[in-house]
């Protein structure tokens, strides 16, 4: 049986192209249409010579702008919008920098390629999703992984995890926070083929 992610089901009926959106509709649209583009977007940003934190800031800026646009009117082609906004932001940055690296400008040309790439598959069979999650889990540092396993699989609260591991509850919360960020990094950013267990 094929299952579609929660967000997909929640939004199919709610809005059509052209209507202004409510905040929860923007949220659903963002998760459904924009978030799957994150891996390509981040690859593009780092290829254009941006540092990690710089890429993060630009990515955040892109998201804010496309969500603002979606609040006015649901974009017809989210992928094109995301990369157009990203390109404009990059060009702005490059212009404002004292030294313009030729490489950075050249890389901007590569953008059209990114836009034309096929979109990542959104509908994942439940079992495949579980495998992706397990593989992602396996990539976490041990302590973080243990905390996530106890929380998500055993259903233990942070207090209970703290009791078992001897760490403070504060530490467990921080570990879980790092866990969700690391999972986002792996699930949203690593190309699909390397995400899979070999």
């Amino acid at each position, binding site marked *: 049986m094929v299952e579609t992610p929660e967000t997909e089901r929640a939004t199919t009926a709610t809005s059509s192209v052209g209507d202004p959106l409510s905040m929860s509709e923007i*949220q659903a649209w963002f998760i459904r249409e924009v978030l799957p583009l994150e891996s390509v977007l981040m690859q593009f940003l780092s290829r254009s010579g941006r540092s990690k934190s710089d890429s*993060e*800031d630009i990515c*955040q800026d892109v998201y804010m702008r496309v969500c603002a646009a979606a609040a006015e009117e649901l974009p017809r082609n989210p992928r094109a919008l995301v990369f157009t906004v990203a390109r404009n932001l990059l060009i702005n940055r490059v212009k404002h920098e004292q030294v313009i690296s030729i490489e950075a400008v050249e890389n901007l040309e590569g953008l059209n390629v990114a836009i034309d790439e096929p979109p990542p598959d959104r509908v994942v069979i439940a079992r495949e999703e579980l495998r992706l999650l397990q593989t992602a889990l396996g990539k976490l540092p041990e302590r973080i992984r243990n905390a996530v396993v106890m929380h998500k699989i*055993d*259903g233990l609260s942070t207090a209970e995890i703290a009791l078992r591991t001897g760490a403070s509850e504060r530490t467990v919360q921080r570990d879980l926070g790092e866990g969700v*960020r690391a*999972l*986002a990094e792996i699930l*949203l950013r690593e190309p699909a083929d390397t995400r899979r267990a070999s």
Partner: protein
Amino acid sequence: MIEETAPGPALEIQSQAAEFLVARRNGRSWSEFDEQSLNAWLAQSMAHRIAFWRLESVWNRADRLNALRPMAPAKTAVAANPRKRIAPFAFAAAVVAGIAALGLSTNLLWNQPRVTSYSTPIGGRETIRLADGTTIELNTNTVVRTALTEKRRTVELVRGEAFFQVRHDERRPFVLLAANHRVIDLGTKFLAREDGTRLKVVLIEGSAKVETGISTDNAKSALLKPGDEAVATARDLTITRKSDKQLESELGWQRGVLVFQRATLVDVAREYNRYNSRKIIIADTKAGARLITATLPTNDVTGFARMAKNFLGLHVEEREGEIVISH
């Protein structure tokens, strides 16, 4: 759209979003005040909202890991029923921005349960009384940690052996954790002894549930009745019924004695060694196989040595820090 001021660095916002998300999903310590702090934070910037949506979507996906859970112990209700979606945020009303980030992290700290550790040295014995009326008697060389909150009482047997008399409270379950095992009180007097990955539970009164292999795919559980002795290892959970006399022997240490009924000398020595820093060493298997029925004081190693010599006719060599017994 709400007017935007320039957001902070993306990495910082991500880490704040992660902190909110984890605390919120944790349920127990999430208060109305925290909810308002979150709403205010979200209302501050579209960047905050997006960072939260992003991580939340990943955290929701991770809920699917729940399928790896081997069985459905008592906690399933909590685990399988996290808030599936964010309640629709009252963004317009979230002009509560006044309280902004104020005190969020401190508030999260206020709600931590107070964890207290208790321990006894080798040969020690101590009774502690918890605020809820529960008493825990710690045997020799034992460490327990307690964490009491309004909603639950969690005690971990880190090492050793303890006798629990639990004041039952339906609204505040009492859970004992040890190694990979869990004992859930249903109104109980019980004895628990931890030994590496092994946990032995002897139920004296009331009833209790023992769960083992909690985070493995080999989880098992059993409901104990008075007189039941459960031994949980990494692989197995076995239950045996004990006679009243056997139960009394198990609790001998509370009176300062060790009660042996046809126990091998090896077992006797092992028991003695838990209570005394001067160790008994059995030098050969022939001596170790001798059977003993006796009631002996826990702290009298020399008395034990004398008994081995006079009654069993064994060879006893007293050295510094140890006593060696051979055939």
